[in-house]
């Protein structure tokens, strides 16, 4: 970061933290994704409610961002605030800056959490995440906290609202996408028809993370340190998140560990049920696991298309497009008999 930007950030932090002075002693980029950038900031604050040394992360749009489906910084900040208040373990959101004149882009600053989120590491290496029974229970517990957020929430009025059953709503959106796409996918159409015919009615609607899976939470050696990646959050059937977490396509190859490749399904369920006070309908979870494969297939087509269309030359995106056949295969296997 350039000196003038660092000085502007220090002035912003002093004002927001109501301190006397703030000095950024270190600033380095942690990850520069296609959509967001994350910067690690070490800040020494004198005076005010945050006096002392602080490790934070500044999150802003990447200069080339253009994906319309994920939330903007102000919205992501509002989501973090809401779930932090609801008792979900997330990086504490500190300050939002919507004024683009400060550093040229909107950003917010949150407290840094430590650990790793890499799914492939987590399922293979027992050093991460601590005791696996506890981790699975804890992830269930955290998800129940997320689902304790119920509409209406004025701070979240940017989340799209709809009146139909969440499952049918997803089917409709996926069909819209496929109709506009250049290549037909009859196997996905088969899956969508099955999902339409078996769709559960609209029941309880809650805030859903909608990307709650291994790879999107952070752990250290002793356990969970935070739930990440809130950009797809929205109102839905709570079972959508449970199905997404348990779906075979998100076990990173550890198919016998049905809770996200890291644990046993019943441990995850126990943590959820204990915290929410509701029992999970096991049969309906299966429906949402099929929906999970469908959602992932549609996203994989979209990711592949970002490469194919020339928008972004990326081997990762190109290969993501080639995940679609295995998702179709799973969908066909799961929907063959009814």
């Amino acid at each position, binding site marked *: 970061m350039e000196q003038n930007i660092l000085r502007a950030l220090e002035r912003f932090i002093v004002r927001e933290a109501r301190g006397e002075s703030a000095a950024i002693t270190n600033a380095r980029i942690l990850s520069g994704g296609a959509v967001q950038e994350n910067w690690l900031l070490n800040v020494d604050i004198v005076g005010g409610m945050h006096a002392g040394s602080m490790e934070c992360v500044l999150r802003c749009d990447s200069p080339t961002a253009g994906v319309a489906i994920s939330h903007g910084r102000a919205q992501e900040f509002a989501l973090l605030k809401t779930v932090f208040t609801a008792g979900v373990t997330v990086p504490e959101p500190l300050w939002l800056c919507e004024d683009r004149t400060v550093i040229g882009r909107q950003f917010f600053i949150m407290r840094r959490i430590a650990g790793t989120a890499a799914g492939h590491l987590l399922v293979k290496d027992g050093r991460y995440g601590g005791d696996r029974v506890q981790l699975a229970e804890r992830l269930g517990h955290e998800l129940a906290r997320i689902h304790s957020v119920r509409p209406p929430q004025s701070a979240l009025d940017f989340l799209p609202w709809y009146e139909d059953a969440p499952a049918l709503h997803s089917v409709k959106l996926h*069909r819209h996408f*496929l109709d506009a796409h250049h*290549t*037909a*996918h*009859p*196997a996905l*159409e*088969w899956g*969508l*028809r099955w999902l339409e*015919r078996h769709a559960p009615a609209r029941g309880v609607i809650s805030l859903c993370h909608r990307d709650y899976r291994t790879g999107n939470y952070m752990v250290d050696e002793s356990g969970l340190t935070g739930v990440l990646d809130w950009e797809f959050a929205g109102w839905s059937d709570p079972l959508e998140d449970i199905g997404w977490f348990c779906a*075979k*396509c998100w*076990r*990173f*190859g550890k*198919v016998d560990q049905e809770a996200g490749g890291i644990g046993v399904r019943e441990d995850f369920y126990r943590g959820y049920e204990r915290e929410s006070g509701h029992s999970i309908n096991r049969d309906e979870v299966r429906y949402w696991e099929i929906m999970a494969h469908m959602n992932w297939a549609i996203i994989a087509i979209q990711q592949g298309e970002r490469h194919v269309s020339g928008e972004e030359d990326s*081997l*990762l995106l*190109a*290969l993501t497009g*080639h*995940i*679609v*056949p*295995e998702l*179709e*295969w*799973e969908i*066909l296997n799961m929907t*063959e008999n*009814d």
Partner: protein
Amino acid sequence: MRDRPTGEELLACARRVLREKVLPALPGEHKHDLLMALNAMSIAERQLHFGEAPERQELAALSALLDESFADPGEANRRLSSRVREGGGDPGQPQRTELFAHLRAAARQRLLESNPKALNGAIT
């Protein structure tokens, strides 16, 4: 007529060099990039191996299923998609079994090229 080695053979040979000689010498953060590149080369190799035959078979199967001749599988798959969406493959429909068998065969062929390991139940 092209000389051998064919494109498929060249890719297989290049992959062996990359996997056996280059991969072990790479620092950790670049191993993942090379593994992705090897995966991409494998997919291309398998597509070359099967050539145009699967697409011709798919077109013939679609024409038989839909009882209409099509110039390309894209158009035929759009027609099949509408039929499925309208319920033509629902339980009790006369074409259900035939239609599902076609979808499975087409998916299987796509998988044989993209990730044949997934056919044995392994999923990445």
